């Protein structure tokens, strides 16, 4: 199911204004994303891991998320060392490239750091709250609509698909490696799209009927508190710190 399990909780992270969290997450992940220094990635990963622990996520769910992202990095660990070239080392019967390993390490640290940061700061707000937060930050309404409605439409598509799939199962459909199976699945996907489209249209009608004129007005208007400002300052300071680290490491390595 598509849920927002991390958004339920009562840690200080959950209580922060989504605006502040959006800004903080942008700052930290930006620094992590553009930096190519191992030091920044490593320290960044540690800092974000601490933030993540402070937001007290459900360990089982957290492990699952981290696992999903690291399937991708696992591929890098397999391919990069064997293909990157340059200086190599001996490891069992392989000759992995040192630079390849370094690169895989860097990417793993960076992607996990950004993941931790997003689970701690972004996933602790509901999508609706984030959408409103984005609007208040001056992000064009169209973009926050896109976020809010893609999110809602995902549920719709998922439900339509499940309904059709169930209908097929109830009529004795068992997936096999056969033309019939592929044809059935293509019909299933096609119908899911058509039905979701129709439903989206009716939802839009429902909104118009209730006076919607292109502007979503949030019911819970969260005002930033003093704590929110301190929180934002701390996060921006951490990002700045990370950014400075990258200068240190560059000056170390450059001749």
């Amino acid at each position, binding site marked *: 199911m598509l849920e927002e399990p991390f958004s339920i909780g009562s840690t200080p992270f959950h209580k922060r204004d989504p605006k502040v969290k959006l800004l903080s997450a942008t700052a930290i992940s930006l620094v992590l994303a553009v930096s190519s220094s191992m030091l920044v990635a490593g320290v960044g990963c540690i800092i974000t891991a601490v933030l993540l622990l402070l937001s007290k996520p459900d360990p089982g769910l957290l492990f699952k998320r981290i696992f999903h992202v690291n399937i991708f990095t696992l591929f890098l660990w397999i391919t990069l060392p064997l293909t990157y070239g340059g200086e190599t080392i001996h490891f069992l019967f392989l000759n992995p490239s040192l630079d390849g390993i370094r690169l895989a390490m860097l990417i793993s640290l960076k992607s996990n750091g950004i993941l931790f940061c997003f689970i701690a700061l972004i996933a602790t707000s509901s*999508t*609706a709250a984030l959408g409103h937060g984005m609007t208040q930050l001056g992000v064009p309404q169209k973009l926050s609509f896109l976020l809010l409605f893609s999110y809602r439409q995902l549920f719709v598509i998922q439900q339509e698909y499940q309904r059709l799939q169930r209908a097929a199962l109830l009529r004795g459909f068992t997936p096999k490696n056969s033309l019939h199976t592929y044809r059935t699945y293509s019909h299933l996907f096609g119908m899911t799209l058509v039905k979701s489209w129709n*439903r989206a249209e009716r939802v839009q*009608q429902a*909104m118009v009927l*209730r*006076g919607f004129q292109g502007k979503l007005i949030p*019911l819970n208007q969260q005002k930033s508190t003093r704590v929110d400002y301190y929180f934002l300052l701390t996060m921006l300071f951490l990002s700045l710190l990370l950014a400075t680290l990258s200068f240190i490491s560059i000056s170390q390595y450059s001749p």
Partner: protein
Amino acid sequence: MTNNAPLLELREISYSYPGQNSPLLQNVNFKTDNEQIGVIGPNGSGKTTLFQIIMGLLQADDGKILLHGNTLETDKDFFRLRCTLGFLFQDSNDQLFSPTVLEDVAFGPLNHGATPREAREISILTLEKLGLKGFEERITHRLSGGEKKLVALATILSMTPKMLLLDEPSNNLDPTTRDRLITILREQELPHIIISHDLDFLASTCTRLFTMHNGQLLPCEEKELHSHEHVHPYGHKPHQHGT
């Protein structure tokens, strides 16, 4: 504008979907003021389409819609109409789109200029009136079918409409929820038009019956609804039939 103009009037409304060779609705004339009306008619006879035309979701090929005697033309006119008429969809899944029940019920009032605080108050009050106290923070897409129907009704009532259009409201409701809906509709004392195949439901919520036939909305003989009510000593009260 005359003072005794009817709340809603349709004049010579015609409509056909693209690709249909004979018109679905043909010169529909209809007038209602302070009445509780039931509409019956076979599937595919154009009942839902007529509601969509009234609400301005579809544009009639021909004819006029009048609200309090004023012809509706511009978007602004229809915006006014939508404040006055509340339309309950056949499928509540299409009507609920906010994450939580409270947000959904407050959506209409907020769009109509209520402050978040006022919207919250009126929403809580509306939910309470429908016996949905405690549902405020429930997730809309996880409600049961009957709960969805009642919440969808709440999203409309929170906009304080002058009249309700209900599209097959008693479909797929369990007997308890169905009775609850009947009680609610009777207590509201709002004029309404109800599309339904459920004659008992109509008999306990409506005073006049129309039928959709050959693209026209025709009044049924007065007897039909009455004869039904006479068989039942409780015809004027919510009641349930052995199935």
